[in-house]
């Protein structure tokens, strides 16, 4: 079986689709900075290649999408994979990532007499401390995102999305810290992590 490789804008669209699993053109356009009409056309094209299914306005990736993305990423991002500066920052990211996940956990749970219980968010001072830490950790992503954006400008959208989410958190929308159904800080980070792994051709460890 031959694996399809993709032209660059098609890769971007399918990449987002694979990250989100199910999305419409507007949602994909929002994170790729492409016009929705352009995205729609490309989704049609991807459907024609058997890489996506479009139904009722929403698209889904097919089983062939992952191999195509992997093959394309190997070709398109070869320079990224050989960039020592990026690789050094990725090394650091591993640490930042575990710190970030630990901070997310302390947002969700507090320790009571040795037992973890759901954070009921009644202690504003505690919550704010965690948000401060999360914000600083997001700040630590900047260098890596910048380095990646030097190779492919699309990575910069992660910075914008994270900034938007954090701004909303500061304005009191605390749901945007870790909500799995909105463009929350954790969701964006999670997608970035997955995208990074695909870009580098690495497997997720956990």
């Amino acid at each position, binding site marked *: 079986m031959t694996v399809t490789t993709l032209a660059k804008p098609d890769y971007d669209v399918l990449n987002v689709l694979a990250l989100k699993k199910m999305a419409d053109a507007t949602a994909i356009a929002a994170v790729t900075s492409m016009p929705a009409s352009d995205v729609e056309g490309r989704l049609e094209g991807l459907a024609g290649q058997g890489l996506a299914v479009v139904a009722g306005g929403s698209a889904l990736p097919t089983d062939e999408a992952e191999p195509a993305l992997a093959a394309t990423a190997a070709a398109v991002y070869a320079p990224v994979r050989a960039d020592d500066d990026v690789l050094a920052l990725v090394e650091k990211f591993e640490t930042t990532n575990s710190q970030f*996940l630990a901070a997310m956990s302390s947002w969700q749970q507090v320790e009571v007499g040795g037992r973890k*219980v*759901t954070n009921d968010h009644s202690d504003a001072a505690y919550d704010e401390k965690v948000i401060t830490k999360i914000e600083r950790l997001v700040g630590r992503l900047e260098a890596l995102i910048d380095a990646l954006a030097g190779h492919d400008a699309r990575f910069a959208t992660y910075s914008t999305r994270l900034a938007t989410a954090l701004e909303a958190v500061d304005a009191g929308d605390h749901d945007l810290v870790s909500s799995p159904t909105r463009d929350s800080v954790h969701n964006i980070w999670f997608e970035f992590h997955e995208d990074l792994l695909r870009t580098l051709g690495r497997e997720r460890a956990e």
Partner: protein
Amino acid sequence: MSAPPAGTGRTWTRAFTDDGPADVDELGGKGSGLVRMTRDGLRVPPGYVITTGACHVYLDRHTLPDGLEDEVRRQLSSLETTTGKTFGAGPEPLLLSVRSGAPVSMPGMMDTVLNLGLSREAAVALAQRSGDARFMADLVARFHTMYSEIVLGALDDRPAVDALVTETDLGDDPGAVYDRVWAAAEAALDEELSASVPATPWEQLVHAVEAVFRSWNTRRAWTYREHHGIPHDMGTAVVVQSMVFGNLDDDSGSGVAFTRDPVTGEPGLYGEYLAHSQGEDVVAGVRTPDRVQEALPADLLAELERTGAELEARHGDVLDIEFTVEHGVLYFLQVRSAKRTPEAAVRIAADLLADGTASAARALTLVTADQLRQAQRPGFDPDALATARDEAQVLLTGIGACPGQVSGELVLDPDRARKRADAGASVVLGRSVTSPADLHGMIAAAGIVTATGGSTSHAAVVARALGTACVVGAADLEIDEAARTVRIGNRVLSEGDPVSLDGGSGELFAGALPTTTPAAANEAMDTLLAAAADAAGSEVLARVTLPADVEAACAAGATGLVTAIDDVLAASGDLNRLVETLLEKSLNGVGALSEMRDAVAEHFAPLLVAARAAEVRDVDVRAIDLLADESRELLQQTAVTTRHPELALPLGVPDLIRAQREGLVRAAGDAGYGGRLRLAVRHVSDPAEAQALAALDEGADAPAVGTYLTSPRAVLGAAELAAHSGVVWLEVRALQAAMFGIPARQFLTAEPLDSYLARGLLAVDPRHELDPVVVHLLRDVPADTGVRLSGTVADQVAATLYGLGFRRFAVDLPEVRPLLLGLGRAALAG
């Protein structure tokens, strides 16, 4: 600007012991708290507050006010006199904590710098005084990290410095240790931020104070104030406090005590003490602490118990007390309301109510509706759980990442998990590793188990955000996606096999374990809810569909039941057949309607048997609603109303209502149910309709017939409708849907409304809040009208409805207890 306390010569500062009001605006939240604790006779380490007035000047002129530095020096020497210690020098060095204290807690503000005052000389003296160079190394590292984090904006992870501290021995040369640790910490900071911490304690103190003032204007603090309408010129105070140490000798130590057990709620001082230690050792788990009862000298234990009891009585709540013993003297560092598990919250509130520590009004505020929901969440039946463990049904034990005990069929793929969940199955999703593309499956699942990851993996974070039971790091889980099987040790399970998951203990069991509500939780809940019900004086009916629901409804405190013809028929599996009959047959004579009557009679009898057994005497039934937006597909509305257009109106076919009522009469007779039984029809809005309904009445034995108010027209005419109706319910969700013009089915799910609200397009979330326009309409509704609420009921909704005078409610079964609590609280407030 605030006037200084008379006779102190102080303009910008206030010692904890100074006279004058404990004014939050001037001293900030923390500062006024410490002043109050000192006044209450608690032995608090001495200190002082730099007032918000100084902050105003600093923010205005970008420099500290004239005379502040002199005052700080005078306060320092006064602290030195009181404590017998010296700032920045031996033999016993005075160390300080510096904290921000705004009148309102807000994000982005500077937090705390501890151990300020560690010049080289002071550090060496401290090591000599305690005979422990490692303790000193630890303090120096902690100070440097905190100062860097708080004043300079660094992160708090310093593995290299921590390693250096760990390597230090008790007896190492103090001077060399200080130099080594300080140099390593400076190197870490330089690498991270190209910054440096000033070497002299005085400079550190002044910079820390300025950093507190500056933090008032961080972007985050500013955003927060903008959003919450807090004035930007309020300013913050600074709390400077002497530190006490628990590791100076064997007569010193530190600990944490709760006035009751925060896990179970059991009465009695619950705490830990570690002699010859500093508080962080307890928190960091470096050494295992002892129970206060065994470890504290008797006189200190007595003092702690007495003070704890006094404080608990004064606050009417369980407290968390942080304390240190220095040279045999007990100091109180912090006293605050204790965090607790949901089970403990219920037990504590019930106990404080029973022993008179808290009034009913106070006790009801000690439990949130969410805590109550969690505490009543059913868990595995204890006997079944024990048997499962004995019979080796435990497949594996991973890391419990989000508590909850659930059973379901094992599914190994997120797409199929969602499909099975959509079809009504309870699903446990098993994955090797989760990626963002798995989210839809995780959302659909009742439980999640992954082979990889720790308690802070993405899967764990997502599961907790969803509140879904989750086990991660189940390394024994070997998934074969192609074969749709999973191998665990030498056992092989196939997709679809029933499993049970305990997200607390991390266990995965073969088979489906039965669940029950914990008996212990029930007893405390009953005590508390009896008080709530007493105060509320309201009837709360539970929505039930199955006979098994009836006992649970009564256990939760429901005074009656509501149910619906379509719900009961759907649960019996008979609804599809009836809808098909409606499509095929005519509505006359022995056609579809007699089948409807027979089905109602058959399927309501078991429910009414259960009601009789549970001594329920109040059952209200909603007639089938062929227009209900939320059951459009289920009832094949388009097809049915095309075949029989008259069914699209509430009284289009009066015989349909008669058929249901006759069915109910027969069911009640068969079941021997003798309580009140009534039938209400949705979408009625005209007095003539209500009269027509009343005219269907066929004698005293037959259930009274009435209406469900669902439209603004009905609500505005409620009084007149009520005059002709045997029963009136007001259905809040339907009314809100009508007012917003949004189909009611959109109120059942998170999306699309979540995103829509997030865009700021609606001022009110119609699922969880009452629209002001609706509240306005409700003013003229007769107060004896029943209010039917759907889904989770927010406290505010309960309070508003109670305030409007309503005293009869119906809710979904799991919401009976939270609503009783909310009504009780509303009744006792103010």
